């Protein structure tokens, strides 16, 4: 394509590839991460299927509606949706080569992620203290496995994004760090998608019983 002449007159950031796609290695790793996301989706779908099959099997334990707190899970949902947005802004600032903007929005994302985990831990804690443990019923086994796996993913994401943030602070926005930021943001948005289904299937539809 005769783009060489054209691109001389146009600021490189507006017409060429984003930095994270600028090397063959970066583009390939981003594709590889999409492959991982699809496999992770299959893992979650198995837990969702288990929950959908078992949520009425409460044995001697509480029903879903007895232990779900509407204000609690609504707050968790709004926090995670907001953190997905701030993560999106961080990617936007990265593509504008704005290092301080990228760092600021990443830190806000991390703080929102931590408050989400804090709410979830307190929810699990109050369930367990009231006697609703993983061993109580098939419903609670499926509930803690599904929601807990998502919580583990979020916790891992917080650690991962923190380590990438340190690399950005030290090395700036390079093809390597921008690829890492982009991949961690894909991971974070994916967790938000999974949570939307947790919110819908586990809490709202499950809570009807």
């Amino acid at each position, binding site marked *: *394509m005769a*783009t*060489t002449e054209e*691109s001389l007159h146009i600021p*490189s*950031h*507006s*017409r*060429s*590839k*984003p930095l994270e*796609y*600028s*090397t*063959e290695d970066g*583009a*390939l790793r*981003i*594709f590889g991460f*999409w*492959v991982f996301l*699809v496999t992770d*989706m*299959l893992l979650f*779908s*198995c837990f*969702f*299927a*288990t929950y*959908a*099959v078992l949520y009425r099997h409460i044995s001697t334990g509480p029903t879903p509606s007895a232990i779900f707190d*509407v204000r609690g899970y*609504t707050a968790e*949902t*709004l926090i995670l*949706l*907001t953190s*997905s*947005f701030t*993560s*999106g*802004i961080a*990617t*936007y600032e990265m*593509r504008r080569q704005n290092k301080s903007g990228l760092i600021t929005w990443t830190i806000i994302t991390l703080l929102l992620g931590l408050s989400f985990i804090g709410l979830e831990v307190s929810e699990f804690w109050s369930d367990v203290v009231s006697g609703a443990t993983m061993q109580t019923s098939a419903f609670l086994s499926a509930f803690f496995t599904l929601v807990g796996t998502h919580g583990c993913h979020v916790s891992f994401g917080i650690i991962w994004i923190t380590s990438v943030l340190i690399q950005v602070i030290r090395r700036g926005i390079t093809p390597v760090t921008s690829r890492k930021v982009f991949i961690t*943001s*894909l991971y974070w*948005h*994916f967790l*938000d*998608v999974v949570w*939307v*289904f947790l*919110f*819908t*299937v586990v809490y*709202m*539809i499950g*809570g*009807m019983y």
Partner: protein
Amino acid sequence: MSSPDEHMRSTHREHGLGVPIAGFILSIVLTIIALWLDQQGALPRDWLITVVLGLAVIQIAIQLFFFMHVTESDERAWHIWLLALGFLLVITIVAYSMWIMTFGAEAY
């Protein structure tokens, strides 16, 4: 592989902040609608389940298109085909598990 100066095959354009902000507002509004329908309790149960699941599916599209830049790729966007296969497998796993277990419930 193409040279770094060449354009992306797909629709990469430098968007303003409008795209993520629109995605954020939409995702919050859809969540509030789902919650409101659930709390209000006017819809019959089956209808409510269908509607809130539909709203959740729209949320996937919002995350994919407004935040995850799903149409961007260095070459052809092969990952979109992979995602489509993934969605098909997810629906199969969940729907068939539920269907098969309805027979289990009859036996007890």
